[in-house]
C-alpha cells in the first residue's frame, strides 16, 4: 500500500533496460566464468590453493551477475531482498568457516 506510488513511478525507468541483449551478454559472461572454472581444474598441476581461489572468485562473480541482472537485485525497490540475501550469505559464511576450521581439529 505504502509503496504503490513509488512502484508505478519506477516502471518507466526500468523498462528501458529490458532487452534481450543485456541478458544474452550476461549469459555469455556466466558461461565464460564457468568455462574458466572448469578449465582451471582440468589444467591440473597448478597450485591447489590458487585453483581454489580462482574457483571461488568465479562462483561469486557469477552469482553477482545472475542476481543483479536476472533477479533484478540491482534495481531499485529491492532493499529488503538485498538485505535478506546478504544477511543470509553472511551467516552462511560464518558457518562455512566453522565447518572448514573448527569441525575438525
Amino acid at each position, binding site marked *: 500500500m505504502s509503496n504503490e506510488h513509488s512502484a508505478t513511478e519506477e516502471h518507466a525507468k526500468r523498462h528501458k533496460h529490458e532487452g*534481450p541483449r543485456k541478458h544474452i551478454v550476461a549469459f555469455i559472461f556466466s558461461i565464460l566464468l564457468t568455462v574458466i572454472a572448469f578449465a582451471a581444474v582440468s589444467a591440473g598441476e597448478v597450485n591447489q590453493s590458487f585453483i581454489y581461489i580462482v574457483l571461488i572468485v568465479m562462483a561469486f562473480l557469477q552469482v553477482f551477475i545472475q542476481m543483479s541482472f536476472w533477479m533484478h537485485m540491482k534495481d531499485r525497490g*529491492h532493499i529488503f531482498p538485498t538485505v535478506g540475501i546478504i544477511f543470509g550469505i553472511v551467516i552462511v559464511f560464518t558457518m562455512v568457516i566453522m*565447518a572448514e576450521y573448527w569441525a575438525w581439529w
Partner: protein
Amino acid sequence: MSTHSHVDGQLPHEPEKATLEGRNKVLGFWLFLGGETVLFGTLFSAFLALRHQVGDGNPTSQELFELPTVALATFILLTSSLTSVFAIQAMHTNKVKAMIGWLIVTVLFGFGFLGLEIFEFNTYVHEGHKFTTSAFSTSFYTLVGFHGAHVLFGVIWISMLIAQVMKKGLNVVTAPKIYVAGMYWHFIDVVWVFIFTVVYLMGKVG
C-alpha cells in the same frame, strides 16, 4: 486494488507488481529465498566438514566425478536460466504465447538436467558410492539431492503454471506466480553454481 481491475487485455507493464497481493508474493518469495540461502549454506557446511571422510576402499571424489557430465549439466541449467528470463520478458511485453514457449523450453532443460543427474547418481552407486557408504557419500547425496529435489519441484511447478496460464490467461493473479517461479529457477541455478564449484571442481582438485 481489486484483483480484477486489470483482467482482459490491458495488462500493466509489470503485472506481477500490479496488486498488493502480487507485491506481497514477490517480497515473501524473496524472503523465502533468504531462508533457502541458509538452508543450502548449512548443507554446504556439512558437506565441507565431511567431504574428506571417504572411508577405506570407497571411491574418492577424484575417482568418482566425471567433469564432462557436470559441465553438460551446468550448461543446461545456465541456459535454462536464460530461457526463463526470456519468459519473464515476454510476460512483461504481454506476449503470452512466447512466454509459454520459453517456459516450456525451461522445463525441458530442467528435465534434461534431472535426467543427467539420475544417470550420474546411478553410475556412482554402481561404483560403490551409495548413500550409506561413508560420511562423504551421505553428505554428497544430501546436498546434491536437495538441489535435485528443488529442480524437480521447479519443473512440476512451472508445468502447472503453464497449464494455468493456458487456461486462465495471463492476468494479475497468474503473473506474480510466473514471476516468482522465475526467481526460484534462478535461485536454483545460483545454488548449482556453488555445487559445481565446491562439490565437483574442488572435489576434483582434492
